[in-house]
């Protein structure tokens, strides 16, 4: 009888390049970000028998153009993995990378498959966010029926309803940078981050490009709110307020400095049962304890992590207090502050090495990156349980609980 546990054997990621033509990874194709990680996995685990890998599951949020046509299978072939290894691309918006991990874990735990690579990729500088259209935003009948608003409006609505001032969200953002800078300085990410190199082996990028160590509330004060104009002239404030009938108006507090950065990057997590460990020649670093998808009201949109976390905790038979560390994607400062307040948890346990405000949010990959960050830090602190979660477009929330396994 094969174990039905889903173990985490490894978790790697690229550094995150600024998601603009001036960013370091703009010259790198999304497929190359993935094949680079697939190469690294074989490099790190020289005994790996890749035939044991059943499938590669990749989250991509804008799966068109060079991220289209099932980039996961394309990467498998391009990286010279066996033809029997499948590849599938999925999209759960910002939680796609974590969704890939969860689906891989579920398939392994079902006993039907042994070894799956899960992760995601997004080259936001090359395939712009939102360029895939979609009925929710682009079809008036659907938008009118569902109350579509851009996420920044939702974030500002949360801030307004929670009474979060501009200083509150900016202070959170400054702390994200400080924590990320410290983590980088101390090498906390060195196990996961795989520098991106060119075809000659020359290094293209070895660090997260957006981190600004000296960020303070004062340095952020000059940034103008990003969503005031579309809220007012785009009509989206009115759409949100139509549902939130007790809110007189939305105070726009989010801007480029306290929202997740637009970046390029990719991540992979190796998930399998014991047989996978044999194929890899490695011991498991952790196990996936539980996963959950849940949802909240789609216009406020970013409050899904708490119900998802509660659902995962219940499934695992754990309490909030049992979790040693949380990674909640820093889509917007208010979304994290809301999650912390909702669950009653201290900032001391949340995003301890910074997050997407400092390092960026490569949409399809971020969820898998959070799993790696969490595992690395649980190991560093020798703690047991970690919970990763992301707020998701359309009001969804995805959560995963992992347990570190001592070496």
């Amino acid at each position, binding site marked *: 009888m094969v174990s039905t546990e889903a173990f985490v054997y490894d978790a790697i990621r690229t550094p995150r390049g600024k998601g603009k033509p001036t960013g370091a990874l703009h010259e790198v194709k999304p497929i190359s970000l993935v094949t680079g990680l697939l190469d690294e996995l074989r490099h790190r685990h020289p005994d790996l028998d890749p035939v044991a890998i059943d499938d590669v599951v990749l989250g991509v949020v804008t799966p068109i153009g060079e991220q289209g046509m099932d980039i996961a299978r394309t990467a498998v072939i391009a990286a010279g993995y066996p033809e029997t290894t499948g590849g599938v691309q999925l999209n759960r918006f910002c939680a796609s990378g974590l969704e890939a991990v969860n689906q891989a874990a579920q398939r392994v735990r079902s006993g039907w498959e042994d070894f799956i690579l899960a992760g995601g990729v997004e080259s936001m500088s090359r395939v712009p966010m939102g360029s895939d*259209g979609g009925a929710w935003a682009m079809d008036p*009948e659907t938008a009118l029926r569902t109350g579509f608003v851009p996420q920044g409006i939702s974030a500002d609505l949360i801030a307004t309803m929670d009474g979060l001032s501009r200083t509150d969200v900016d202070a959170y953002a400054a702390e994200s940078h400080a924590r990320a800078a410290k983590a980088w300085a101390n090498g906390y990410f060195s196990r996961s981050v795989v520098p991106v190199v060119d075809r000659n082996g020359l290094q293209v990028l070895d660090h997260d490009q957006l981190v600004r160590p000296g960020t303070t509330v004062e340095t952020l004060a000059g940034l103008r709110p990003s969503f005031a104009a579309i809220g007012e002239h785009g009509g*989206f*404030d009115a759409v949100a*307020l139509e549902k939130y009938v007790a809110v007189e108006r939305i105070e726009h507090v989010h801007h480029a400095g306290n929202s997740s950065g637009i970046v390029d990057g990719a991540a992979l997590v190796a998930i399998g049962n014991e047989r996978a460990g044999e194929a890899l020649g490695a011991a498991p670093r952790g196990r996936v304890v539980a996963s959950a998808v849940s949802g909240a009201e789609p216009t406020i949109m970013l409050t899904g992590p708490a119900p998802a976390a509660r659902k995962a905790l219940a499934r695992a038979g754990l309490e909030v207090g049992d979790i040693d560390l949380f990674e909640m994607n820093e889509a917007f400062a208010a979304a994290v502050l809301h999650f912390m307040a909702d669950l009653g948890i201290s900032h001391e346990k949340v995003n301890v090495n910074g997050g997407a405000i400092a390092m960026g949010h490569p949409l399809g990959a971020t969820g898998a990156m959070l799993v790696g960050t969490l595992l690395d830090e649980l190991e560093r602190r020798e703690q047991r349980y970690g919970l990763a979660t992301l707020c998701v477009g359309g009001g969804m929330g995805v959560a995963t609980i992992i347990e570190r396994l001592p070496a």
Partner: protein
Amino acid sequence: MNGGMIQWTQDDAGVVTLTMDDPGQRANTMNERFGVALGETVDRLVAEKDSITGVVVASAKDTFFAGGDLNMLRRVTPENARRLFDEVQEIKRRLRTLETLGVPVVAAINGAALGGGLEIALACHHRIAAEGGYEIGQPEVSLGLLPGAGGVTRVVRMLGLQDGLMNVLIQGQRMKPQRAREVGVVDEVVAPDQLLDAAYAWVRAHRGEDVRQPWDRDGYKMPGGTPSSPKLAAFLPAFPANLRKQLKGAPYPAPRAIMSAAVEGAQVDFETATRIESRYLVELATGQIAKNMISAFFFDLQAVNGGASRPDGVPSYTARKVGVLGAGMMGAGIAYVCAKAGLEVVLKDVSIEAAEKGKGYSEKLLGKQLAKGRTSQQQVDELLSRIAPTASADDLAGCDLVIEAVFEDPALKHKVFAEIASVVEPDALLCSNTSTLPITGLAEGVDRPEDFVGMHFFSPVDKMPLVELIAGKQTSDAAVAKAYDVVRQIRKTPIVVNDSRGFFTSRVFGTLVMEGAAMVAEGINPVTIERAATQMGFPAPPLAMLDEVTLTLPQKIRQAAEAAGESAGAFADHPGTPVIDKLVELDRKGKAGGAGFYDYPADGPKRLWPGLWEHFVLDGVEVPFDDLGERMAFVMSLETVKCLEEGVLRSVPDANIGSIFGIGFPPLHGGALQYINAYDGGPAGFVARSRELAAAYGARFTPPQLLLDKAERDEPFA
């Protein structure tokens, strides 16, 4: 053929002129007769195509074509959906054949081309309009419908999504010919006597060409791009969001359907687009909101403006010279609208300065219009020359009409009428602009009470279309008829009611605003109260309106009623009263004083006063949101039924139109009585819901006897 609906003549050059002339109606409409005639005509065009060099579409009426068959559309139900869809598709198929005939087709627009009229013209290759003051457009949205005979599809292809939606479809702008040409739905504007010549000239110039619509030509690109083009895709999501913002959350289905049909249609071929358009039209036409809006804005309005409430047998009257007493805000507005309609105006106040200040209002309005190019200096000068400010009663000599608009004080009103009684023409019509004071009492101050009429204008006078005429006990039918004619002369809509404190409109308006105050008293969040109103379809929410009319008004009305020993209606013993009294006590009397339910900062939009939370809002008050909007509409409808029951109201159309045009009843419900007819379960359903509201919120929701009778007989207010 077809009884002359579409007359066919062909000249020696092979040009066929199709002249539309419905033998059964004053105007051409898209009725069954037209459908049959169009089919026969298009069949013949196809059959005889080889001998045809061009087609001119014209009208023998003084209008071009009036639009849809509203009698039919008012009756159509979801059970007829298939039939309506097929009929609409059939008309479109014929128009499509016309525009793909392969010979030049031109529309000669001689007069109003609204709705289906413009749609026919859009199916021609070229549109020439005669100069004139008539209107062209696709106003279907104002009746809860969409241009379903190809209007959405063709306007979008002609102008692009953004311009098509914004300039033509969503608001249903009614455009003068010149404006229609600027917008692009008309190609040429010519002198009326050159219309047909211009049409024939265009056909001659294109004879022998395979004339096609732009969207049927190779390489056609939609102006501004289709939804799949990045240029448009970037801001397409803001289209529906801005629409919601414009509608303030009111559930109007038509603009939503128009936008949806336009965007969906822009992504597919022409024929598919027209089917999408038809499906949305059928949904709208078979729904209740279109019925309500057609009922109010076509049938009721036609009855009201057509003289249904004007006493019979009185010769038509045209006022020549009006004396306006009082040059405050109302008097100044009245002077303006009278001068605009061509009347000589003597604007009198206690001092010449006050009178001139009143005239200054017209100068200000006209200055704005001049700056926007909507009028000429000559017209401004002419209009202003008709307003003579004065402080002397003697200057009212020769006035055949007097409109008094001084403060709401019976003694003062008596005094100003006494001053001019012997100066004006001996049979001058005497009108008092009062919003609440009973006319019968005011009439005691004049020597000719039979010539004395209440003429209640709404503020701002230059914008508000309604005038409520009030017949006192002694007012003669002749005076009512003359007053009716005066209101039509100044191009407003008159409703006629009998005397009562607050008449019809102020009484019912009072119930609305006091209900808002009552909700505040219950501890409900004021933001939610206001939001409930706009989402119910009220153009303005109750607390904002209380600020507009000032919070001392309900107090004054209450005091005046009590002084007269009468009931103050909604203002007596109302649960909202303590809220109003408290705010007045705190010197928050409304917008005029810069503070009321709202704060009015100089540098930004008004905000609800935070003190409301301190004084009134209670944590944990949970009232179903839908109850709030319903309460506002129900109190108005119930008071309207009482007005009908007491004989204050004389007709159902007056009630519906008065409630919408005067006091902001939600237009999509078709008026305060139509709301009852259309309520789920009809009058009986309305009674049942009223009783629920009475049990939950107070006896003011108890249905009156007349409503119970209607419910019992399952009979609508008609």
